């Protein structure tokens, strides 16, 4: 897909999506509840661990556990984005404007990206603040480690983008928003599995693994973008044919 973007049209879609999100219960649920679910376990761990048992944390990477947030939150937002318009009856007027497929996808992707990455970083920040303020001596240094922090900061936007393309591809083919959201989450589970297994040291982390995963995520993100573009077909979306 060759991307030709008119900034004003991308911005129009982006703004409209953000305004529309505020009135959507599913979106608010995804933005509020999912991050909390992934915040609870690490926070409880911080409060319950004593200084003596903090050494156990050296074998784990608690921060990486929260990489599930930038995977799951944008997937649900993106999964709603196209099929949601279809069931509301707003897709046809949108598609009759001069907006190009890539402008529409870019605007919608950006609208899923910005809030979900923001939420992810805010949750990380909260977690780090809780750790620094309330963790027993020794626990904080075991949790907050430079390489984990770096991985967290770097992987968050790329994982979010990958999962947005997955959600959007699902959304372009789905018939109802709930199914789309469930299916998108299901498809992103393998990504969450990898980050969680790394967090719990089932997959031993190393700089080499981080680089390999980075390359893998970049390749998959590019493929995901192409897939989302390929399945976005005006005729099929309007007529409901598959």
């Amino acid at each position, binding site marked *: 897909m060759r991307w030709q973007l008119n900034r004003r049209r991308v911005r129009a*879609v982006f703004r409209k999506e953000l305004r529309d999100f505020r009135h959507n219960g599913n979106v608010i649920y995804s933005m509020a509840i999912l991050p909390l679910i992934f915040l609870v376990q690490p926070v409880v761990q911080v409060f319950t661990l004593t200084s003596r048992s903090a050494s156990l944390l050296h074998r784990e990477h608690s921060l990486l556990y929260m990489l599930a947030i930038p995977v799951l939150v944008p997937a649900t937002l993106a999964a709603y984005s196209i099929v949601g318009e279809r069931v509301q009856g707003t897709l046809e007027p949108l598609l009759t404007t001069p907006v190009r497929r890539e402008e529409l996808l870019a605007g919608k992707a950006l609208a899923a990206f910005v809030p979900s990455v923001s939420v992810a970083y805010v949750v990380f920040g909260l977690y780090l603040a809780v750790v620094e303020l309330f963790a027993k001596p020794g626990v904080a240094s075991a949790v907050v480690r430079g390489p984990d922090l770096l991985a967290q900061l770097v992987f968050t936007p790329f994982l979010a983008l990958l999962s947005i393309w997955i959600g959007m591809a699902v959304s372009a083919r789905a018939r109802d928003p709930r199914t789309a959201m469930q299916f998108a989450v299901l498809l992103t589970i393998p990504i969450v599995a990898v980050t969680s297994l790394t967090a719990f040291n089932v997959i031993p982390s190393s700089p080499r693994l981080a680089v390999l995963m980075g390359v893998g995520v970049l390749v998959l993100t590019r493929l995901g973008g192409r897939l989302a573009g390929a399945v976005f077909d005006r005729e099929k979306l*309007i007529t409901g044919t598959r």
Partner: protein
Amino acid sequence: MATNSAPAVSVEGLSKRFGERLAFSDVSFEVGQGEVFGFLGPNGAGKTTTVRTLATLIAPSSGKASVAGLPLSPENGVEIRRRIAVMPESPGLYLGLSVTDNLACFADLYDVAEPKDRIAAALTAVNMADRAADPCGSLSKGLRQRVALARALLSDPQVLFLDEPTAGLDPAAARDVHELVDALRRRGVTIFLTTHRLEEAERLCDRVAILNTTLRRIGRPDELRDQLFARTLTVRTLEPLASPEQLLASVPAVESWSPDGPTGYILTVSDPKRAAPALTRALVGAGADVLSISESRHSLEDVYLELVDQGAAPA
């Protein structure tokens, strides 16, 4: 109707098939600049699919067309959509957003210059300026339809496609939409109106096309009536005529006649305007007490039913 320059829409042998199902077949017509063109047909006749095809949402299976001066092709999709506007049957507004926010989004999508002014002008055109800040979800169906029409006017389109604009509206709301279409006609906007409300088409359209998968007939409503139905006069007298055969045969414009009750006569005539005065003179001359002489009017509905229900030959 303005008839200058190239047609606003030109369609030649256009067909669309979804797998085994034929949506419309071999459709050809032209719509002039500034014309209000009615596209009539029963449900499933292919009207909406034709509009979607001309609006570049659906690719035709065969045939060719030009819309707003551009050949219908995927490469021209963006430019065609920039020159036209479509108001689908369902208004398709973002109900959580205000009227202004809905229009602002579309003004940006159309790359409209000075969007605030355009939005204000569009809302004024549909008498909705005082509801600009209201959420669309709080509006009645008729008002939502008006907002959808304002949205379609934002880009000052060369061709405006209105797909069943009064479907589901009460008579007062439908009348408002009719008045808006009339106003647009006065501004010279080319309007392609699909409807199955025949009185609407008869009132608003310069010409109509009747579609039932294939194009059945195209023309002005009165032309279609003349093409399909013989022109007749109905005569009512106080008493039966003594010798109707002799009397009616003496009037040159009368081609044939048949009785309609004891004191009524239906006459087939070549030209009612010529026949009626001559007939009146003949009846009075024969001493008949004439109660009425009237031209039988066939409505567009008669034309439509004749063409759609009886499966008339394609045009």
